[in-house]
């Protein structure tokens, strides 16, 4: 067990290091931050001086090692654009992204499962067929288009919801939340639908097909034969057994909700880490880009690590195989 854990953790660290190395080797192609940082009236001497100060004249491997040296001490450097520590900026922006991701995830799971069950039970009804056809939109339309369409419908034409931003927020310790104000809640609606729509349709289609599968099983027929009510059969027996694969997929999708938030945040000017990352690319703000990419990869690697370890503890065959192999 311990050997397995150590091996997996070591692999994860290796993946992180490689991601960082690839990221740093790419930064050169994003452009040169110097011209953004100096005004129109800069001289070549100013350019050279700043380049040396920032260490941009060194090979990217050296820059990377320096970044790692700071990162392990929790110091991600100072943003070129804002002139403030990157860790402060990320802490400011993280609540916006996490709240958006949480609401999107909640919507995706609750509506996705609900509609999935409905379309499975009423598989030939007109309502179910309409929902199935509409769900194709969620799968096929790109996020930014859905976002713009929602803005034009609900903000510009109907004027019900704000077109951008996060509304008023309330500060609780180091966290800012939009859950406690009316404008904050209103501002959450459109972006969370935009962000969660893909996952919602995915979960719905998954639940539906699993449910159809389960409904054919003998124990469901037996339950019906026992005279149990439809509700008990559908929800207590059938749904429960469809959830295992759904939970696996949802867990893996959680990471991509946070990572895909970049597009939604750009469309809605949502002040989260995704928007921060886009702005950082435009400005070639290397410390911010590096910190963001590392955090996202830590998140993905972490989720995968947990999943691996869970499988290991759940599935005894895995353990048996390993002891035989060695």
């Amino acid at each position: 067990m311990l050997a397995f854990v150590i091996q997996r953790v070591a692999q994860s660290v290796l993946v992180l290091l490689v991601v960082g190395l690839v990221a740093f080797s790419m930064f050169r192609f994003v452009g040169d931050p110097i011209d953004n940082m100096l005004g129109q009236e800069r001289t070549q001497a100013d350019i050279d001086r700043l380049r040396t100060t920032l260490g941009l004249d060194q090979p990217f491997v050296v820059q990377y090692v320096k970044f790692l040296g700071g990162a392990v001490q929790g110091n991600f450097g100072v943003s070129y654009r804002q002139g403030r520590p990157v860790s402060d900026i990320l802490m400011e922006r993280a609540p916006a992204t996490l709240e958006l991701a949480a609401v999107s995830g909640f919507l995706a799971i609750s509506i996705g499962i609900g509609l999935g069950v409905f379309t499975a039970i009423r598989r030939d009804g007109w309502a179910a067929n309409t929902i199935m056809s509409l769900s194709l939109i969620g799968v096929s339309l790109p996020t930014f288009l859905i976002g713009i369409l929602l803005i034009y419908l609900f903000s510009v034409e109907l004027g019900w919801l704000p077109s951008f931003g996060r509304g008023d927020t309330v500060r609780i310790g180091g966290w800012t939340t939009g859950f406690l104000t009316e404008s904050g809640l209103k501002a959450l609606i459109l972006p969370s639908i935009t962000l969660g729509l893909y996952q919602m349709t995915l979960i719905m289609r998954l639940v539906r097909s699993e449910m159809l599968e389960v409904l054919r099983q003998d124990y469901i027929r037996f339950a019906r034969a026992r005279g149990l009510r439809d509700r008990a059969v559908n929800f207590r027996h059938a749904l429960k057994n469809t959830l295992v694969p759904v939970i696996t997929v949802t867990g893996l999708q959680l990471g991509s909700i946070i990572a895909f938030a970049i597009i939604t945040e750009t469309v809605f000017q949502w002040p989260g880490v995704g928007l921060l990352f886009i702005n950082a690319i435009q400005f070639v703000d290397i410390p911010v880009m590096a910190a963001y990419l590392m955090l996202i990869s830590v998140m993905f690697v972490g989720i995968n690590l947990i999943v691996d370890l869970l499988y290991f503890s759940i599935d005894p065959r895995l353990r048996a195989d390993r002891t035989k192999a060695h």
Partner: protein
Amino acid sequence: MRRHLFAAVLLCAPAAHAAEFTWSETTDPQTMDPHAVNSTPVLGFLGNVYEGLVRRDEDMKIVPALATGWEPIGEGEGWRFSLRQGVKFHDGSDFDATDVLFSYERASSEQADTSSWFAPVSGVRMVDNYTVEIMTNAPNPIFVDSIANWMMLDSGWAKANDATRPDKDAGNYATLNTNGTGPFRVTRREPGLRTVLEPFDGWWDDATHNITRAELTPIQNPATAVAALLSGDVDFINPVPIQDTERLKQNPDVNVIQGIEARVIMLGFPHEAATLKYSAETMDKNPFADVRVRQAVGHAINVPAILQTIMRGNAQEVSQLVGPGMRGYSTGLAERPAYDTDRARALLAEAGYSDGFSFGFKCTNDRYLNDESVCQAVTGMLAQVGLRATLDAMPVQNYWPELRADNYDMYLLGWSPGTFDAEHPIRFLAATPNEEKKLGSWNFGGYSNARVDELLPMIQSEIDDTKRQGMLDEVTAILQDQAAYTTLYVQPLIWGTRANIELTQRPDNFFNLRWVTVDQ
């Protein structure tokens, strides 16, 4: 513990108010320090908070601000400023000559991005508490114009908060906090998110606006900004995308305010290069070194057609490095080379390129309005006369390093004169590059003309306006004859407001809250 948490809950939800004003710009001012970054988003925004000795009025004219008057000292040895009395900073402390001295030291320090404004200054002297003398190395007629954005900081405040020098790398107190003398004070600053301003009750001048609270939110996505304006979530957006202009004009709820910006869009050439870099067949020489080839480029481009189609009638063609309305514009030389493909072909034949030649054309795709489309049109028009350009458009972050490395045969450049004077582009674009004298720092092609170099210092120190204009005209004529650059047009400035907003647009693209009125 729980009790403490509740105590920390801070509700920041101000009630909707009559004369509240919200606006969005593409770029958030990256700092609140007026000496740390010399750029339009920063200085334009901070002009509402901080003030200089002088300021520009609605028509860009220099008028008194923290100085009530100024006069030259002797035969152009410098300028004497009389300071306004009774001016208060936002924290209540008094403004006087020590703050001017301190702001000079701060803004001209090596850490400041504004130090080039003070290159002609030899020293600053405090005569008494409300009189300051700024001495210049040579007579300098436009010195007062050139310090219009030099903003005054309170020396006591800066010292108390350990911000006596700007810190661009790590930031300091002045990066996030302000203490100016201007009409508005910053009450909340969340970088990249929102910046809230409220009127300063103790302002020395009479307020002409009716704003009780103003909020700036940067919106990067143009479609989102337009939607925010249409839905009334913001009162003003800058800029309006050109392609949305017509649609917004049709909408009775919004107004479109159009003008021309100070920025001139032009084509640059490799004057010094021995050979072309990206030619398929012309490997051994540089055709652009021949003035006739450069003139042919000028005649081959149909600027009115570009303005009509790509800019949708929103820009103005220009014949020189500054647009009309700038100080020192040469009114007698306002004609661009006529669009004449026969003349262009004849010039090319004369230069020995009757079959034309191929070359590489570098262009930005995110810096100027519709820059890539303009470059595509230029490429097509040049092909008509046999100049076969291969267009390479890229983001501006990759663009400047390419130009600095001389990786181009022709390039696109936009130039906005920081001083709104014709001397500015001559210094940066036409003077022979000289690192030590800080000349020609954006003259990528290395254009060099002895007479221009000779005239530049004379222009810089000539007090007599007529003589100065004569020399500026001479430089403009030389640059036109030599076709040093092919100037195309002055970029438009397109702002969008809700119909109940009145404001003033200036060609420097600075937005002043003090000229905003919100009709109820």
